[in-house]
Structures are given as C-alpha cells and as structure tokens.
C-alpha cells in the first residue's frame, strides 16, 4: 500500500513539475494553431527548438537573459512567417507536410557539424540558466506538502513555468473573445466564407501561426532553463506528438484544456510507469511478460490506448463541448 502511495505521489509531483508546465505552454500555442485556427502544425517542436537555441546562443554570447527570451520569441515569429509565407496560401495539408519537414530540418541543422561553432552540434550548449537561477527567490531546501516536494530550483522553474502558462492562456482567451477570434473560428470552419465577407484569411492565419509559435518558443526556453542546457536530442519529432496528446486530452479549441491536459498527460504517464516498475520489482508482473527495459516503451502504449478510448467516447477531450465536435462530423 505504501508503495502505491509513493507511486501516486511521484506521479503527482511530475504532473505539477517543470516538464508539465513546459508542455502546458507548448499546448497553449498548438491549441491556437490547431484547436482554434485549424492549422495542422505537426512540427511544433521546431518552434520550441528555435526559441530555446536562440535564447541559449544569445545568453552564451554573454548577453543577459532578458535579451535572450525576446530574441527566442522573435526567432519563432520569423519561422512562423517563413512557414506561413510559403504554405498558408495552399490547402491545410501542405502546412502539415511542411511543418513535419521543418521540425526535422531544424533538429538536423542544430546538431550538424557545420553549425557546431554556433549551436554546439551534438553536444549542445551548457550553462545557459545562470542568470535565470540567480533570480531564484527561494533559498535552498525542499518545498511542498506531504510527499510532493520540490527542490528550490525545481520550484523556481515551476513558478515561472506555470505563470507563463497562465499568462499565455489568458492571452489566447483575450484574443479569442475579441472579434479577431471570431474571424479565426470562421477561417477554421470555412476559409472561403470568411474571405467572401472581406476577411484577409491569409493574414490572420499567419498571425495565429506566429503567436502560437512564439508561445511554443517559450515552452522550449523553459525546458532549456530547467536543464540549464540545450541539446538536439530534446527536440525529437515525438515531442510534437506529446504536445498534440496534451492538447487533445484537455480538449482542442478550449481555453483551459492545454493546462489541464498537461497535468493529466504527465500524471498518466508517470503513474503507469510507476505501477509497472513496482509490479516488476516486486515480481507481480512476471519477467517473461515484461522486463524493466521494456517498461519504458510500454507506458506510451498505455497512453496511446487511453487516447484511442478518449477519441471514441469523448472526442471533445475533457473540457470540450461535444455538440461542437459532432456538428458536421457525420
């Protein structure tokens, strides 16, 4: 029983931790893209990577963090404009194809030998978070209640991370309740209808792509600060699909879905992992069925199965409105 409680506490710790905060931020950005505007962005990790690396390069060059963060966001906006300028005139599928490619192009570029002087190649850039942790108001020690405790560094990343997640959520809420959001929803549903009413659909889609991308860049930066480093292996394509999972779990096109989805996603993953690990170590799960090496992959199978179940019985996610999803779904 005590083991079960420990697994639960660990999962809860992860669900509130820095990684969950970063994925919440990323999902807010992706939700603006896909949930609200209908842009099929399968390369969200590109925005995260560009943001994190730009910040790291700027900070590594000796400039302060408050220059690095806006620079990272600006780089994501530039990437958004490049992507949008080339693909937004075309059908939605082309953006999807292009974003997958761009995600990989960015990752392969930053780990390439040719750019090693700038990006550090496969080794990445270390020690990018000195400025950030110098601002840490928490004195060394463990903080938290019950078994859910965090070090002062983790707590600082969490406070900043969840604050940014909340601010980004508020930004998206404020945009979506404005007439701007009304046009975005219209473009999502039928671009030609919006254009026939005098709305510049391409401009608004580009705006959405850039804002969501800049939010994604913030997520990438938070991950980099938490680890005090950037490294190309943090930006594998699967990161994009974790962000998608977070968004769909919470409910695409909902305001609070992204933050809630991140908490749920990390809780489910870590709880499943913890249960499997305990089961294996205590011999409840026999060796011929599952070894501790295989366990790492199996937890994603569980998440995948849950996601399939969610799509069947609750396609709108936890917070979505069912009618909205079902209209036109026949």
């Amino acid at each position, binding site marked *: 029983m005590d083991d079960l409680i420990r697994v639960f506490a660990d999962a809860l710790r992860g669900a509130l931790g820095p990684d969950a905060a970063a994925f919440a931020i990323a999902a807010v950005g992706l939700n603006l893209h896909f949930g609200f505007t209908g842009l099929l962005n399968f390369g969200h990790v590109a925005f995260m990577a560009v943001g994190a690396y730009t910040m790291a390069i700027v900070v590594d060059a000796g400039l302060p963090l408050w220059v690095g963060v806006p620079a990272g966001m600006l780089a994501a906006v530039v990437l958004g404009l490049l992507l949008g300028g080339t693909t937004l005139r075309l059908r939605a599928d082309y953006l999807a194809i292009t974003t997958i490619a761009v995600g990989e192009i960015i990752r392969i570029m930053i780990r390439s030998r040719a750019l090693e002087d700038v990006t550090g190649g496969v080794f990445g850039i270390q020690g990018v978070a000195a400025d950030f942790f110098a601002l840490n108001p928490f004195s060394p020690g463990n903080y938290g209640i019950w078994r859910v405790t965090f070090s002062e560094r983790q707590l600082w990343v969490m406070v900043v991370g969840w604050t940014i997640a909340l601010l980004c959520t508020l930004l998206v809420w*404020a945009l979506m309740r404005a007439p701007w959001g009304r046009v975005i*929803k219209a473009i999502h*549903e*039928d671009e030609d209808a919006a*254009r*026939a009413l*005098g709305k510049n659909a391409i401009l608004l889609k580009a705006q959405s792509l850039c804002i969501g991308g800049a939010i994604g860049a913030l997520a990438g930066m938070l991950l980099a600060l938490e680890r005090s480093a950037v490294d190309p292996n943090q930006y594998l394509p699967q990161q994009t699909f974790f962000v998608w999972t977070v968004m769909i779990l919470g409910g695409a096109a909902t305001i609070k879905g992204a933050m809630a989805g991140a908490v749920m996603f990390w809780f489910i993953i870590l709880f499943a992992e913890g249960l499997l690990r305990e089961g294996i170590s205590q011999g409840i799960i026999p060796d011929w069925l599952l070894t501790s090496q295989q366990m790492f992959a199996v937890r994603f199978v569980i998440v995948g199965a849950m996601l399939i179940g969610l799509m069947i019985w609750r396609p709108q996610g936890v917070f979505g409105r069912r009618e909205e999803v079902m*209209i036109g779904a026949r």
Partner: protein
Amino acid sequence: MHADDPNHPMAAVSPEPGIAKPDPILTVDAVSRSFGGLKAVDVDHLEVQRGLITSMIGPNGAGKTTFFNLLTGFDDADSGTWSIDGTRLDGKPPHVVARSGVVRTFQLTKALAKMSVFDNLMLGAAGQQGERLTHALFPFLWRKQEAEVKERAEELLDRFKLGHMRDEYAGTLSGGQRKLLEMARALMVRPEIILLDEPMAGVNPALVQSLLGHVTALRDEGLTVIFIEHDMDVVMGISDWVVCLAQGSIISEGLPRAVGSDPKVIDAYLGTHLAEEATPADAPDLAPESTAHPEEPTS
C-alpha cells in the same frame, strides 16, 4: 415597378448582348477563363445597371458560377478587366473585392455550422477594429463598434425571421434558413452589389416566396442584385433584366419577356430539336437543317 412597365428604367435599352446601360455600376470587359481545352467563360462586354435585379440564366455548364468566381476573386481569369464604379477589381483577392462592396453567396451554402447564428452575422460586418491584432487585446478600442455591429445584427436577425435561432449553432438550421442566414450575413458587410448564386436551390416552395421577397427588398433599398437562378418562373417574376449565358458567352440579354422568347435562349436550354417542336409551323421544313446547329449544350 414591374419589368413590363413602359416606365421601367430598362424599357428603352435594346436587348442586345453587351449593350450599354444608362447607369452601369459594374462593367466587365473581355473576361475569359479556360479549363484545359474548355472555354468556361468568354464574355466580351457586360454592363450591369445600378439598383436593379439582374438575373443570369443559362443551361448547366454555361459558366455562370465560374463567372461569379472570377468577378469575386475566387478564381483567376486568363484575361479581362472589370470594375465597380470605375474601381478596377480584376486580379484582386476575394477579401479586397468584398471590401470594395461586392459580396457574394455560394451555391452550396457556407453557413458556419459551428458558430452560433448570431456570431455568423456579427462576423459579416466590415472594417471591425477588433479584428486587427493590434486592437484585439484592448476591448476599449472595439467595444463601441461591437455594440453597433450587434444592433445591426439584431435588426437583420428580425428581418430574416431568424430571431428564434439566435443562439443555436448555425449547423442546426434547415437548408432554407441557411440561405436566409447567408443573405443576412452578406448584408452585414453593407455591400453595393450582392451576387447570389442560386439562392433558391434546394429551398422548399413555401420559403421560396419569402426569399424572393427578401431579394426584391434588397433592390428596393438601392442594392444592385445579380443572381443565378434556374427556375424560369422565379426569373421572369422578379428580374428587371436577364442575361443568358451559354458555353461561356452571353447569347442574349434583355427584359425578362424578351429573353424568355428569344429563340437563341430556347435553343440553348432545350436543344435545337425541341426548340423546333416549340414552333410547330416551322418544324417540318427545318428538320434537315438541324444538323447545322450546335449540339445540345445541356447534356
């Protein structure tokens, strides 16, 4: 004023394709569009009189919808120019055309199903400050305008008898109600010309009368209406002027009655053989000649 009235503004205009109008709002010159080897639209010259209902008729595949698409920027013309009150619109993207006062509806209605009926209307209003990214975050910059838009949307909601559906998803409307919504939404833009692509298609006969009433009301308020319609009774009943397209070109234009009895129009619609049967006196003599006529365009 009915089109048969001798005082009708168009009574003195002779029924020839491409004829000049006393007060044209829309002028089209040498517009063409081909799809592969098929010339879908090839209109030499067309003027549309301000403040009247001009119908575009023609058999299926005559190029009516393509012509609409070209005029509104949804398709790119191979050549040609057109302008509204002297402002050139050729080569302009759809949203610029709409902002210039030319708003269209679609043959397959584009009601935004996942938005409420009311939001569909609110969307229509032109020049909304709150749609600009720089203003969207500051409600005090757009709240006043939003209230005005709301007022107009409520008016149109009442006028088109959609009030009871105000907060329902537009996806729950019937086909006819969607046509009404689309027309109302187009009016939110405050256009000068409204192009209606088969507004009566798929609408039950009871609602057709109400839709016709709305179309005539638009004209009576000073709008220029251009619409595509298949139902001849409808066309004859409410049009001030009729333009008939066949195989992309204007083959006839004139007052409804004149176009309705134009043998070229009857030919285009019914094919040569049937047209001859329609005038039995000539039928026996002309039978061999029919091979010289173009093939049935309706097939």
